[in-house]
C-alpha cells in the first residue's frame, strides 16, 4: 500500500502536470488513427496471448488519454486502475513502434509521473508471490 492510499486526489496538481505536457499529449491523442499497428511491437502483448489491453495504443489511450479527456478528474480507484496499466502492463522498454510517429513511451512516462504525484505507484511488495 502506498503511504497516502486513501487521501483525495489533488486535481490541481494533476492538471498542472497535464498542462505542462498538453501539446505533446493533445497531438498524440489526436494523431493516433487507432490502427493497432503498434500491437505487434509490444512483447507483453505477445506474452499475454495477444490480449488487446496490452497494445501500446490501448495503454496510452486508457491512461493519459483518459486523464486528458477528463481534465484530471479521476478518483483514487481510477488511479489504481491506471497503476495497473502504466506499471504492470508496460515496462517502458520503449520498443513500441507507431507508424504515425507517436512517442507512446513518453505518454506512459507522463502518466506514471502523474500517478506518482498522487502517491500511486508500483510496489514490489504488493506482487503476489508464486506458490512453491
Amino acid at each position: 500500500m502506498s503511504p497516502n492510499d486513501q487521501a483525495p486526489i489533488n486535481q490541481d496538481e494533476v492538471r498542472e502536470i497535464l498542462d505542462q505536457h498538453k501539446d505533446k499529449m493533445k497531438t498524440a491523442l489526436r494523431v493516433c488513427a487507432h490502427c493497432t499497428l503498434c500491437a505487434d511491437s509490444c512483447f507483453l502483448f505477445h506474452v499475454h496471448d495477444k490480449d488487446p489491453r496490452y497494445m501500446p495504443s490501448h495503454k496510452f489511450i486508457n491512461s493519459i488519454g483518459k486523464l486528458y479527456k477528463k481534465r484530471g478528474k479521476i478518483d483514487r480507484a481510477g488511479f489504481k486502475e491506471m497503476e495497473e496499466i502504466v506499471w504492470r502492463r508496460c515496462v517502458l522498454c520503449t520498443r513500441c513502434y507507431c507508424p504515425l510517429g507517436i512517442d507512446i513511451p513518453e505518454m506512459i512516462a507522463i502518466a506514471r509521473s502523474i500517478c506518482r504525484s498522487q502517491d500511486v505507484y508500483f510496489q514490489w511488495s504488493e506482487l503476489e508471490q508464486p506458490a512453491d
Partner: protein
Amino acid sequence: MYDFIRGPMVWVAFLVFILGTVYQVYRFYRWSRPQERYRVRIPFGKPPKDPEEKPEEPELTWSQKMRLNVVGVNPVMVSVTTIFHLALVLTPFFVLGHNVLLDLAWHASLPSLPEAFTDGLTVVVIAGGVFFLLRRMLYKRVRAISTAYDYIVLFIATAPFITGFMAYHHLGDYDTVILLHLLAGEIMLMAVPFTKLVHMPYFFINRFVLVHENTLGAGGSRVWR
C-alpha cells in the same frame, strides 16, 4: 442551395483546409524547438572519434530484417493502407471531371488520367475503406480501441469517393448525388485539420521533422519544447 454548395462553399472548404493545416503546422513549430547540438569535450589523450563512423551492425538475413519491420509483421495492412492513402490523395487531382471544371473556371487544369483508370482508383479507395471497416468491426484488437468517432472519420474520408463513383455511373438521382458528392468533398477537406484526419500533415511532421528513433529521411531537426 446547389449554387451555394458549388460556389462559395468550395472556397470556404479550401480556405478552412489550407488555413487550418497551416495553423496546425504553425502550432507544431510553436510547440517545438530546434534540436540542440551538444558539444562533447573529448577527454585528454583520447583520439577523437570520427562522427561519421557508425557502430558495426550485425548482419541480418532478409527474413530476419522483415521480422523486425512493420512491413514484414503486417504485410497486408501495410500494403492496403499505402495503396489506399496514395489513391485517396492523388485520384481527385487527375479526374477528368474535376479538370474540366477547373478549365471552365480558370482556363487552366492539371493533366487528366483516362476515366476508366480513375474509376478503378476510386474503386480501390472504396475497397480500402471496406477493408478498414471490416477490420475495425471484426478484428478483436482494433475493436478494443474503436469508438463511434473512428467510424465517422472513416465515413468522412470515403464518402466523396462513394458519391463520386455513384455520380460517374449515374447511380441514383444524378442531381442529388452530385450535390452530395460536392458536400462530402467539402466536409472531408474541412475535417482534415480538425479531426483525426490531421494525421495527414502530422504524418510528415512526426516521421520527418521530429527527432526520434523512427524518424525517416535526414533524421529530423526538431524536438518538443
